[in-house]
C-alpha cells in the first residue's frame, strides 16, 4: 500500500465527516419530524397515523404515503394562536437582540481597550456564569424578582419606588432573564473582532481630522460589523426558540412559539401539529442564516 493511500483515508474521512454529521443528526431527524408533521393525530401508540409498515411491501407503503397531507400546516396558517406565537417569538428575539447589542457592545469595547494583561481576567468574568447550571441561574432570578426579592428591596431602600413593583410574570422579567442569559454570546464575538482591530487605524482617523466620536462611528463600528452579525445571530436564533425563560419568568397571556410547541406536544399530545410548528420554526430561522451567509459571501467577494 502506498504512503499516499494511508494518508488519503483519514483526510478523506475528515472531509466528509461534517456532511456525515449533518445527515445523521440533522437531515434524518428532520425527515422524521417532517413525516410526522404530514401525518394525522390518532389515539394510538405512536399517537399518529399513518405508520409506515416496511414489512407490508410496496402497496402498504404507497397507501401510507397517500394518507400524508398538509392539513397541519393549513391549521398553523388559519389559527391566530400559532401566527401570534411566531410573531411574539420574533419580536421578543428582535428586541432582546437589540438590547443585548446595546449592552454588549460597550462591554466588549471596554474589554478590548483594557491593558493586555487584564483582558483574560475580563474574559473569565464573562464566562464564569456558565459554570453554574442555567436553570439554577433562572431560579435565582425568580428569587431576585419576587415581591420581597432583592430588586424590590434595593429599589425601596434607594427610595426609587414607594411600593414594591410586580416583576415576576411580566415581559420585563422575561427580558431581564433573556438578556442576562445570552449576554456572553453577544460579548464574546464582539470582543474578538474589536480586540484584533489595528489601533493605528484609529490614529490614522484622528490624524485625518476625525474626533474620537467620528473615528468610532467611521472606523471602529464598520470594522466590527462581522462581530455584530455573529453575536446577533448567536443570540437571535436560540431566543426565537426559547422555552424555559419565558415559561418561568413571563406571564401566561402571550406565548412564544417554544411554549406553544410544548403545549401541543405534552398537553394536547398532538405530535403532528407540534412537528409542523417545529418545521415552520426551522424554516423561519434558516432564512436569516442564509441572508447572513449571502452578506458574508458578498463581503468576501468585495475584497
Amino acid at each position, binding site marked *: 500500500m502506498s504512503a499516499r493511500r494511508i494518508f488519503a483515508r483519514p483526510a478523506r474521512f475528515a472531509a466528509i465527516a461534517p456532511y456525515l454529521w449533518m445527515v445523521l443528526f440533522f437531515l434524518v431527524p428532520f425527515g422524521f419530524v417532517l413525516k410526522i408533521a404530514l401525518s394525522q393525530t390518532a389515539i394510538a401508540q405512536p399517537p399518529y397515523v399513518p405508520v409506515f409498515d416496511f414489512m407490508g411491501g410496496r402497496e402498504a407503503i404507497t397507501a401510507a404515503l397517500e394518507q400524508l397531507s398538509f392539513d397541519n400546516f393549513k391549521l398553523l396558517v388559519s389559527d391566530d394562536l400559532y401566527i401570534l406565537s411566531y410573531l411574539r417569538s420574533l419580536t421578543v428575539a428582535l428586541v432582546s437582540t437589540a438590547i443585548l447589542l446595546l449592552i454588549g457592545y460597550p462591554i466588549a469595547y471596554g474589554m478590548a481597550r483594557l491593558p493586555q494583561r487584564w483582558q483574560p481576567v475580563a474574559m473569565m468574568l464573562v464566562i464564569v456564569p456558565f459554570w453554574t447550571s442555567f436553570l439554577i441561574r433562572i431560579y435565582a432570578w425568580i428569587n431576585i424578582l419576587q415581591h420581597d426579592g432583592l430588586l424590590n428591596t434595593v429599589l425601596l431602600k434607594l427610595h426609587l419606588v414607594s411600593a414594591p413593583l410586580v416583576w415576576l410574570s411580566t415581559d420585563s422579567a422575561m427580558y431581564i432573564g433573556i438578556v442576562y442569559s445570552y449576554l456572553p454570546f453577544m460579548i464574546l464575538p464582539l470582543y474578538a473582532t474589536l480586540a484584533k482591530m*489595528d489601533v493605528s487605524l484609529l490614529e*490614522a*482617523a484622528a490624524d*485625518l481630522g476625525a474626533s474620537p466620536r467620528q473615528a468610532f462611528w467611521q472606523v471602529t463600528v464598520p470594522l466590527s460589523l462581522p462581530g455584530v452579525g455573529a453575536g446577533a445571530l448567536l443570540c437571535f436564533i436560540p431566543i426565537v426558540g426559547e422555552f424555559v425563560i419565558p415559561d418561568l419568568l413571563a406571564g401566561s397571556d402571550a406565548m412564544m412559539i417554544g411554549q406553544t410547541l410544548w403545549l401541543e406536544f405534552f398537553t394536547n399530545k398532538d405530535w403532528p401539529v407540534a412537528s409542523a410548528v417545529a418545521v415552520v420554526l426551522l424554516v423561519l430561522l434558516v432564512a436569516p442564516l442564509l441572508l447572513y451567509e449571502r452578506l458574508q459571501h458578498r463581503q468576501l467577494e*468585495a475584497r
Partner: protein
Amino acid sequence: MAEEIQKSEPELERAAEPAKIEPPVVAASLPIKLEPDMPLLRIEAVAKKFGNFRAVDHVSLDVRAGEFFALLGPSGCGKTTLLRMLAGFETPDEGRILLGGKDIAHVLPHERPVNMMFQNYALFPHLSVRDNIAFGLKRAGMARVDIETRVAEMMALVRLEGMEKRKPDQLSGGQRQRVALARALARRPQVLLLDEPLAALDKKLRESTQRELMELQRRLGMTFIVVTHDQEEAMTMASRIGVMDAGRLDQVATPRDLYEAPASRWIAEFVGDINLFEGQPGAAEGGRLAVSTRDAGTLYVTEPRKALKGAVSVAIRPEKVKLSRRAPAVDEANAFNRLEGTITDVSYLGGQTTYKVKLDSGATVSSTMANTTRIVDAYLAGQRVVAWFTSDDCLVLDQ
C-alpha cells in the same frame, strides 16, 4: 514593474505641468503666519520617557518651511516616537513643539495641521481607495464637489487613476504606499510626516519612489519630515538630515556635511564606511597636524579648527584612499600619508571595486576605486601596494 519605472519619467513631466497648487485650504485650523527667519516647526528640548526608558532625550530642532528633512538613526533610537509627538499621538514629558510660533504640544491630533503617513500605511480596510483619500476631506467639512475634484487630483498625483473603487487589500505594496501618501497629502498639511515611507518596498521601486517623493515635495512646496533608518535614502532625498542615536539628536547637517564632516566617530561609522586609526595628536606645523597612530604610524591631517583633547581617531573614507604599486612623490597630490601593505580581499561591485589592504602592523585599510575602464587592470589579492591619501581627506574625531 519595469514598465512602471520606465513610464515614471514622462508621467512625472506631464504631471508637473499644473505646478500651481493653491495654498492649504483644509488644514488651516491654525492660521500660520511666519515671520521672516522664523522656522515653520521648532522643537525645543522635547523629551519623552516610557517608564524609566528615555525614548526621546531633549531634542531641539528647527525645520524651515518647504524643507525636506530626514530623521536618520538606527532602529529603536526614538525616531517614530519623535514623529508621533509631532503628530500628537504622544505627549512630550518636557519641552515645547512650536508650529508657526504656536505651541502645539498639547493640541489633539485631529486638530493639528499636520498629517502623517504611517509606517504600516494604516489604510482603512473597509473603504475604497477613493474613500480612503476622501476621509480627511470629509472630516474637514469640504463640499462634495470639491472633494471629488481633490480626490481626482490626488489620484493623478500619485498615478492611481482607475483604482478608485478598489479596496486596500486588492492593491500591491507599491500601490498601497501611494494611497497612503495621497491620503496624507489630500488635506494639504503644513507639515507632512512620513514614517519609513519606503521601507516596505523592494529596492528598484524604492529608488523610483524616492525620486517621485522629492519631485512631489518640490512641486507642492510642502514641508516633509521623513523618518528612515537607511542612510542612503536620507542622503538621496533630504536637504538636511538629523541623526538620532539613543533618543538624542547628535548632528543636523546637509547630506554632504554629514558624510564629509561627521560630528562624531559614531556618526562617521553610521553614515557610510570609514577607516579609523586611533592615536595621539602631536605637533602642528604648516597647517598640518601629526597624529601618531598605533596601526598606521604617523599620519598628517589638516589642522582642525577646534582644539583637541586627548586621544583622537583619524578617519578616512575608503574612496579617498588610493592604491598604487609605487609610492607617489610627496609634493605630488599632497600624498603625505602612505601606508604599505598586502591586498587580502577584492570585492568587485561593477561600478567600483573595494580592496582590503592588510598593513604590516596587522590593521586593515579599505580602499574603493571607481572602475573607470573596462580593461582589467585591478590589483590582485596577495599583491604589495601603497595606500595613500592627502591630509585634507582625513578627519580628526574625538574618540
